């Protein structure tokens, strides 16, 4: 168990970040991370050799997907445009903060599978192979999803010139 503490504890902040970026709700995300850690503790001896980081992200990702499916089945949908940004971004300077809120709002418009892949790779620094393991798809699929995610996010970003971000907000 000591071994687990040493290997898992440093990764908790990253798990929280991934969960919150996916769920866009602090409480729901932390609940998910808690579930993930409880599973990790009870299954520590069952994990296979390989990256502990990828193993933890796999557990977390599967829990998140189960939640999304349940939410969809119950007819609720996850917040897309409204809630969440202020919880996500808390940059010191105002202009930077607006840019951050904007990118997160646009990220939220991506389909779930594109969002996960972009977050795992661009934010959580998982290797392409580890991301493939977490998402349980071939590396080729990871690459094509990553490519689609980046193109799509770029289209979203190009839709509004950078200077207009502030204007849009003042109209709100």
């Amino acid at each position, binding site marked *: 168990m000591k071994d687990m503490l040493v290997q898992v504890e440093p990764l908790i902040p990253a798990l929280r970040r991934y969960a919150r970026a996916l769920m866009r709700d602090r409480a729901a995300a932390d609940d998910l991370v*808690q579930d993930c850690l409880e599973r990790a503790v*009870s299954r520590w001896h069952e994990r296979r050799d390989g990256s502990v980081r990828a193993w933890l992200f796999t557990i977390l990702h599967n829990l998140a997907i189960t939640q999304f499916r349940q939410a969809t089945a119950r007819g609720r949908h996850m917040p897309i445009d409204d809630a969440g940004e202020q919880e996500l971004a*808390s940059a010191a300077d105002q202009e930077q903060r607006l840019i951050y809120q904007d990118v997160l709002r646009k990220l939220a418009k991506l389909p779930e599978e594109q969002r996960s892949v972009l977050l795992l790779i661009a934010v959580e620094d998982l290797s392409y192979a580890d991301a493939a393991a977490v998402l349980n798809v071939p590396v080729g699929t990871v690459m094509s999803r990553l*490519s689609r995610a980046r193109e799509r996010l770029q289209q979203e970003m190009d839709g509004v010139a950078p200077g207009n971000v502030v204007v849009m907000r003042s109209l709100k």
Partner: protein
Amino acid sequence: MNQRPITEDDLHAYVDQALEPERRAAVASYLDNHPDVATRVAAFATQREQLRGALASIADEPLPAELNLSHIIEGRKRRPRWAGGMVAAMLLIGLGGLGGWTMHGLLQDGSNGLSSLAQEAAYSYSVFAPDHVRPVEIKASNSAEFAQWATTRLKQPVKVPDLSVSGYRLMGGRLVPTSHGPAAMFMYDDDRGNRLVVLTRPMSNRDLATPMMPQSTGDVAGFVWAEGGMGYTLVGQLPGDTLKPIANEIRKQARPI
């Protein structure tokens, strides 16, 4: 120069700083000569920086108590374990159905051996469910092989119940010895770490079929029944109303079609 052509994958790996230095240099020189591609790649790099910046502060927040790993590990250790419940159950068995172990007494009259099966399942649960090192001998990934082996040893067709509709995943199984020969044990868990044990073996009466009966020993509860000469039991540490639909599902799946 036998240089490999630059691929889209290379461009992404360039953005993600995942290229070997040599390849990285090759992509960089390609981008120098292809400003339109360079613009796209620069935009992807900007996205990456913005996403990382926007989410960075989350990882700096102090962890709430619920996410303190030491607490989670400690919480598991303090959770009531099987050992205590089993001692109590054994004592009650010793007392011989004086009312404490009601279902045991109830099942004993005309139980057709189902009470033994119920007891065996409770023992299996108490020994294997709390085990974090090797609760099962054969993992779920080899379930077909396990079913085949169990079928050979039990001399009866054994199917592995699929409880995913009830939110339980197969962890795996093992053969366990009983006074009536080998029994096949399957273990399942859900997202919260609750574990269930299903135990099945042939009954001495090869035509036996009975309705589903509740059973409990200590804080292990569940249901036991027989069909086509095979005895089945589902046990766990959950309320009867939770276990009943799962037992029904197992019964449905075990029926020869």
